[in-house]
């Protein structure tokens, strides 16, 4: 490999350090999962006794968490719909159409991903404040879409590039109209990518903090803002339970994306199987 005659001692040392770094990445997550079932939610690790109290406290009377969760879910749903509409149209334009200033459009799409989120959030605050839209779930969803839609566009570009255009051409040559092609050929092949784009848009909005914080009011507090507040202001031990739920949710979403990709991966290959046996390589589904 890199060092052709690497010593055994060197290899063991490298493996040990790499394991420590992997622990460094995994530990903060593992510790929350464990602590959320511990009777002492703040200190003392490992826990002395186990409890479900923090999970029960989430849904107790007067708890702020259900409202925050509902608001975040609502905002994330809106944002996902907006992002998908923008994502599907933009990815179509960037992969299928002739587009003047294509690289400028592409740069515009990448913009929100590289500009510091606090700057985007500040700009959105200055936009929505004069419109008296602070605290409106719609404003928060519109703001989140600025961050979520570029991700949807990138995923859908990769998806559409992975679809062999000859399948669409073949359908057209047999007299299918454009709508029919989109509905019967492109959409079924793009469905896994669209589901992935939807899931990632949802997570992006659901976890978003900066924009939510700038655009929220006392009555509209999203889940991440509530988590932040309870970490800085009022000490609320049920925040560990919320964090554990957020972790489970993210892992579940990633698993879902993997599952959908795995289910969708074989589809196009079977359609193009004649060529594959001849040895012509087809462009495979590009990874996100």
């Amino acid at each position, binding site marked *: *490999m*890199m*060092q*052709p*005659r690497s010593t055994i001692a060197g290899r063991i040392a*490298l493996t040990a*350090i*790499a394991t420590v*770094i992997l622990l*460094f*990445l995994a*530990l*903060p*997550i*593992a*510790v*929350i999962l464990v602590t959320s079932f511990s009777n002492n939610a*703040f200190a*003392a*690790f*490992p826990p002395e006794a186990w409890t479900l109290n923090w999970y029960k406290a989430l849904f107790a009377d007067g708890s702020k968490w259900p409202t925050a969760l509902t608001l975040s879910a609502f905002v994330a749903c809106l944002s996902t719909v*907006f992002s998908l509409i*923008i994502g599907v*149209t*933009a990815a179509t334009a*960037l992969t*299928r*159409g*002739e*587009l*003047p200033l294509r690289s400028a*459009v592409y740069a*515009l799409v990448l913009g929100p991903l*590289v*500009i*510091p989120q*606090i*700057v985007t959030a*500040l*700009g*959105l605050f200055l*936009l929505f404040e004069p419109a008296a839209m602070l605290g409106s779930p719609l404003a928060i969803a*519109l*703001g989140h879409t*600025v961050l979520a*839609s570029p991700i949807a*566009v990138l995923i859908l570009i990769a998806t559409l590039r992975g679809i062999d255009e000859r399948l669409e051409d073949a359908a057209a040559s047999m007299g299918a*109209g454009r709508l029919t092609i989109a509905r019967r050929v492109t959409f079924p092949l793009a469905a896994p990518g669209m589901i992935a784009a939807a899931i990632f848009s949802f*997570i992006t909005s659901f*976890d978003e*903090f900066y924009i939510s914080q*700038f655009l929220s009011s006392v009555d509209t507090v999203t889940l*991440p803002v509530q*988590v932040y507040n309870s*970490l800085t202001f009022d000490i609320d031990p049920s*925040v560990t339970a919320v*964090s554990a739920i*957020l972790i489970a949710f993210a892992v579940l*979403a*990633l698993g879902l994306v993997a599952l959908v990709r795995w289910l969708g991966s074989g589809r196009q290959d079977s359609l193009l199987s004649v060529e594959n046996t001849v040895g012509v390589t087809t462009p495979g589904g590009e990874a996100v």
Partner: protein
Amino acid sequence: MAATLTTKAPAPPRKLLASRRTRAGVLYALPVVVYLLVLFVYPIFSTLFLSLKNANGSFTLHWYADALTGVNLSVLFTTLRISAETALFSLVFGFILANAISRLKPLWAALAMLIVVVPHFISALVRTYGWIILLGDKGLVNETLTGLRVPGAPFQLLYNELGVVIGTTSMMLPYTVLLLYGVMRGVDRRLLAAAASMGAGRVTIFRRIYLPMVAPGLASAGLLSFILSLGYYITPALMGGPKQTMIATLINQQVTKENQWNGAAAQGVILLLLTLAGLLLVKLVSSLGASRRKRSAS
């Protein structure tokens, strides 16, 4: 569209077809362009205008002078320092980890990459909270160190610069590992074997062959984590003390607590300019790397 196509001559002129595709492309690009112009580009420009405006609406550089003096200047330096430390650590750890993973068998490599990538999709707020639990006086880290009779334990690992850098480094590591892993997998192993066959030692091979090949990747990974750390807010605010106030914290305070929008806008623009300068450097480095690859290939 389909109807017009069938009523026209069987083979439509090329030019017409091209213009129709152009029209469709522009039409489909319209939503994203309009959306981002209104909700992303326009707000950034209004931030810029606000940062240059006086209370009575006339032009001023007062807010920039304010942002670049006294406490605000020291916050800017703190931001640069913490970002540089974060970039350095995430680069070193990222290099070691990516290198180790690139030597693993595919199954183990995939598992290790899973541990690297999955945390990236978990809210930074949640991961920061995990660190707060871990690094506290009675947290796992200090308990272990005390149990091992490490002199000086328990250590103060939170609410100081060490805490912030631990937190931000763990947030940036997935980026550097992913970038460097890609670069390392692209290294042609035959070149290393060739050098070894000519009698080069391991250190020489690493320094003269391997490092130059991954250097552009290292530079862009370091720059990227530096840029991403610049605008970071959650981890420094929750894991640092007052001495670790970063520019994003200051922007947030000015908007939510002091209603000082102009000052916040000026600091936002400074943060934006620093980011753009960093991105320009990334681009420069990658084009430099590409030209070098081309030369070595020929």
